[in-house]
């Protein structure tokens, strides 16, 4: 039994490295194909629209609730220390630096990666990708490059929206137990933010978007035959994309503290 288990683990490890190397090859192919023409502009715009449109409601609602809950939970603690005036600043800092980007990216991993995995997977299974190839269209450019680029640009946009809605939620939270004008709230919330808070938080969202689009397309494009294969593609796309979001976040924190810690 021990031996069989060992073989099993070895096979799983082997699969893991295979998967990673295929993903690396896929990424390499993306960078090779992204620059040379022709450009599928219409597809890119369509995909961007779909991503933004599909994820917007959930990002909005989650952002609002996050802002609200964060405020309500932080308020008593700050009141204890007599630092209630710092509430907007503290909420906006944690929202914009960490919670907003990560939560939004996770939502997009769920919505965008899975739908890309399922869509490309079923196109693969029903030979639509082959049909494109035969029609003289490079399916990688038409399907993958447009989707990855769209995700790379739209996820940051969704993060900005999520952050903004989150601050509105926080404003409502503050006003539940007190009274503060919208103007005062936002000047307090934004006043303490500086460049070294905003820039890294914003830059990492592009990497989130890239990873989300890339993994969704990768899983779909190489999905195995059959309906089960499509389901698996969608499911594993979400799992891997979510994991990558955390890994990128961790790396981003390390790099940020390296560059901005002196400040």
């Amino acid at each position, binding site marked *: 039994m021990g031996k069989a288990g060992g073989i099993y683990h070895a096979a799983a490890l082997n699969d893991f490295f295979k998967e990673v190397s295929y993903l690396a090859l896929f990424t390499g192919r993306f960078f090779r194909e992204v620059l040379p023409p022709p450009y599928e502009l219409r597809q890119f715009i369509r995909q961007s629209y779909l991503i933004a449109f599909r994820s917007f409601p959930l990002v909005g609602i989650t952002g609002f609730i996050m802002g609200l809950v964060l405020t309500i939970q932080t308020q008593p603690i700050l009141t204890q220390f007599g630092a209630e005036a710092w509430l907007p600043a503290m909420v906006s800092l944690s929202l914009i630096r960490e919670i907003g980007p990560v939560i939004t990216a996770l939502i997009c991993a769920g919505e965008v990666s899975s739908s890309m995995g399922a869509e490309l997977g079923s196109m693969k299974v*029903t*030979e*639509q990708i*082959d*049909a494109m190839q*035969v*029609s*003289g*269209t490079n399916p990688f450019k038409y399907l993958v490059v447009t989707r990855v680029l769209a995700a790379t640009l739209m996820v940051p946009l969704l993060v900005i929206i999520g952050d903004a809605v989150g601050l509105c939620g926080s404003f409502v939270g503050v006003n539940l137990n007190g009274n503060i004008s919208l103007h005062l709230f936002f000047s307090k919330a934004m006043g303490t933010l500086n460049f070294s808070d905003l820039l890294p938080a914003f830059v990492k969202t592009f990497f989130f978007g890239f990873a989300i689009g890339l993994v969704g397309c990768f899983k779909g494009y190489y999905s195995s035959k059959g309906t089960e294969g499509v389901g698996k593609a969608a499911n594993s796309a979400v799992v891997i994309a979510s994991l990558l979001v955390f890994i990128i976040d961790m790396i981003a924190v390390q790099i940020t503290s390296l560059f901005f810690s002196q400040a």
Partner: protein
Amino acid sequence: MDSHQTPIVVEAEHLRKSFGDNHVLKDINLRLAKGENLAILGQSGTGKSVLIKCMVGLLFPDAGRLLVLGKDVADLDDRGLDEMRMKVGFLFQSGALYDSMTVRENLEFPIRRQMRSKSSAEISALVEESLENVGLSEAIDVMPVELSGGMRKRLGLARTLILKPEIMLYDEPTTGLDPITSRGISSLILEVQEKYNTTSIIVTHDLECTRIVANRVVMLEKGICVAEGTYEDLRQSNDPWVRSFFE
């Protein structure tokens, strides 16, 4: 034989293709003259689809030579493959319709991609004409999921024929259709041959269709060509296995 005068457009020599341990094509030899309709018969799983997929560069042979329009498919780069594919039409066994696009967009897709100089009016006229050819005019603004199996098949056919390719590869064009529609498709295949002097390979199980369209028939069994001849030749063959196919 007049095949000395007419040029050969597809030629396969000792073609082999395996997927792992599954040796699908073992030794395929084929020659196809311009303007000819060749039917390929064979049991399910003998590699008929694999063979014609090799001819458009969707799969690549492991060994042997495969010349399409005078060029070896294995030597072509992406650009060469695209140029070759413009002249070769492929009807997928499953139809392979783009299910996120309407019927009209499905038909427009290959034209917009390959004939960029065409105006919208010309494209629209082409689309309507080709839908009429397969009797689907009323379904022009419908999504493919709303079509019946037979209608999907005919739409796939229309989408392939719209570019008027020099070589047509039909993967089971009549499977799953009623006899009347089947006959309609068969006569369409003949019409395409006569009108545009198209060379065709028709992979099929449908004997009626074979009888109507094929100038020549090749039978595949376990990855090799076991018999070749006209429909009548094979029907009266001495080989009991070949004959059993026609009963």
